[in-house]
């Protein structure tokens, strides 16, 4: 604000209905016509020059002009534009990648939820919903994936919209877990700008899948470019293999996709943590940890609302009108009434204003 040039300061003023401003020439009307009564005087030159009368006459003209101009501008609805201010707060850009495969609708015990039981999707909905908006300056993007990746909400600081996306994640899911394309899309959510911003990629899934070796190279390059902090919130179903478990037989990606996805993430060279959660409490603990880890300065924009200026215009109009009303009240007619002389002395204005 301080460094703004006068032109910039001026450009921040605007009106709602600019067409009304075409009436503004009407504000010159008081210089042409008067609201005062016309009093015929035989010869104006007969009277002495009266500076006071002249001044009152001009005051009435200017007041009339101000009154009309103020009303016209007031009707047009003047305001000062809102502005966006960039500041620095504490937070991070978080791209959330949510698994929407069908198994997310089961409980941590791998059953259909019944009674008070909570499905994995419902638990992550509840806990992620608390996470979003717990800090004012975080930015979030939501991507869903099953067979295909779906961009749900682009990177935004509108937390209500992000929560609306989180609220949808315990709806019935789709078929499969195809994590590779989901990862690519959630990485693309970070956009190109901002090298200093803390970026976090949070994957919420209950399973893993084989990442095609051909895609692995592309993903590696993307991770190296964006360098997000990677968090994998693995919602493990009881009895299913853990990230660390080595399969009894052959150790291939097909036999133990979770373990190999973990190995792939570790090999990326970006900061990476996996949280294995076997219940809602563990999910909550993991989210608290992520929150504590992502504490870096982030530039955020603050929207200053526009300020209404109608009252200024109407105030000016009111001042002008009050002067005009006073002028009308002080009118006296020289010819009328027997007490002509004191009136003329009292109200010398009308001769000039007439």
């Amino acid at each position, binding site marked *: 604000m301080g460094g703004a040039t006068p032109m910039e300061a001026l450009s921040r003023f605007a009106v709602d209905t600019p067409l009304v401003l075409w009436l503004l020439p009407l504000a010159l*009307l008081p210089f042409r016509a008067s609201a005062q009564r016309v009093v015929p005087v035989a010869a104006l030159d007969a009277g002495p020059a009266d500076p006071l009368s002249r001044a009152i006459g001009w005051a009435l003209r200017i007041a009339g002009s101000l009154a009309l101009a103020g009303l016209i501008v007031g009707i047009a609805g003047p305001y000062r534009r809102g502005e966006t201010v960039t500041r620095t707060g504490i937070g991070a850009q978080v791209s959330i990648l949510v698994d*929407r495969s069908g198994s997310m609708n089961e409980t941590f015990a791998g059953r259909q939820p019944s009674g008070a039981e909570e499905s994995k999707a419902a638990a992550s909905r509840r806990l992620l919903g608390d996470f979003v908006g717990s800090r004012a300056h975080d930015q979030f993007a939501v991507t869903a994936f099953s067979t295909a990746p779906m961009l749900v*909400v*682009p990177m935004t600081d509108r937390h209500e919209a992000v929560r609306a996306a989180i609220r*949808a994640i315990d709806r019935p899911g789709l078929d499969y877990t195809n994590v590779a394309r989901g990862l690519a899309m959630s990485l693309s959510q970070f956009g190109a700008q901002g090298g200093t911003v803390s970026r976090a990629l949070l994957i919420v899934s209950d399973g893993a899948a084989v990442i095609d070796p051909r895609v692995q190279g592309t993903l590696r390059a993307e991770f190296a470019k964006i360098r997000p902090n990677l968090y994998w919130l693995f919602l493990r179903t009881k009895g299913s293999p853990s990230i660390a478990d080595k399969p009894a037989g052959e150790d291939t990606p097909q036999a133990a996709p979770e373990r190999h996805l973990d190995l792939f993430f570790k090999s990326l060279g970006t900061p990476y943590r996996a949280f294995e959660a076997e219940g809602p409490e563990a999910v909550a603990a993991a989210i608290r940890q992520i929150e504590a880890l992502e504490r870096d300065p982030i530039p955020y924009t603050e929207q200053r609302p526009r300020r209404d200026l*109608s009252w200024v215009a109407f105030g000016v109009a009111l001042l002008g*009108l*009050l002067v005009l009303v006073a002028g009308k009240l002080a009118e006296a007619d020289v010819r009328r009434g027997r007490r002509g002389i004191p009136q003329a002395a009292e109200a010398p204005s009308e001769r000039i204003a007439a």
Partner: protein
Amino acid sequence: MREHLARNLRDGRFQALAGAAFLVVLALVLPAVPLTRTGVSVLAVVDITGSMNVRDYASADGKPASRLDTARGALRDLVTALPCGSQVALGLFTERRPFLLFTPIEVCADFAPLDGALAALDWRMAWEGDSRISAGLFRAAEMAASLDTDLLFVTDGQEAPPLPSTGGPRFEGKPGAVRGLIVGAGAYALSPIPRYNDRGREIGFYGSGDVQQENRFGPPPADAESREGYNPRNAPFGGVAATGNEHLSSVREPYLKTLAGETGLAYVHLEGPGGLAAPLRAAATPRPLPGRLDLRPVLGGAALALALAAFLFPMVRALPSGRARALTLKKA
């Protein structure tokens, strides 16, 4: 003194100016009047199946535009046209069910993410290739009911695979319980459907042999006996391969109108990337939104009229009298 004052108070121009000043005072002190406006709360479900890639619309610069592009443009236009406080949820449709991307989002405060999500709608989000419109529509109606919103279902109406001769599934809900609009996307003439490979690149169009032309599940149709090579046991659908136009696509308006009648929704054809706001507001449940009516322009306008009258009155009155004086001068 009093005499003069009384005369001044009776003066029409004084009264006009005083009235104008009074109206301006009112404009300065009166708060905006609260009133209710009508908004909508709607779940938009967009068909993203293959036939929505048909390019049978023209974009603003005259280039062909796909049905999905046009529908996306129409939805973005709709979001800007709805009054603040209205809410829009978004879902995708392919296979036989809608998939909810997000629950309702307010269209003004959260415009940027909503617009971004609409702009990102893509056929590549589809998880399966089937397009069972009626099943998807019925489940979308259930979804809208669970979200307590109206429904806006954008589709071209092409069932893939084609419906069996016995017809599609029946609507089990209460017709009219969910209000809203079916939007038919596509031109009325048949157009070829673009085909994509598994990396998402376009590789031509579907040919007549690439798609199922007739649904041969369930009992055969009534006219099967008259078909060539018909055999009740070995060839109940006739002896020759089915032919048809299922590899080409146009908007299936009669079918969509039937579905609209069955579910109690209204039907409208998508004419271009816009124009959905009026039919939606006509079909949707009106939802009261808190609004405010600013009285200041009205009061200010009345004050301006009074003040102008005070200044113009002597000029108007002067006109005929001036002419009269001119006449007397001539006579003299």
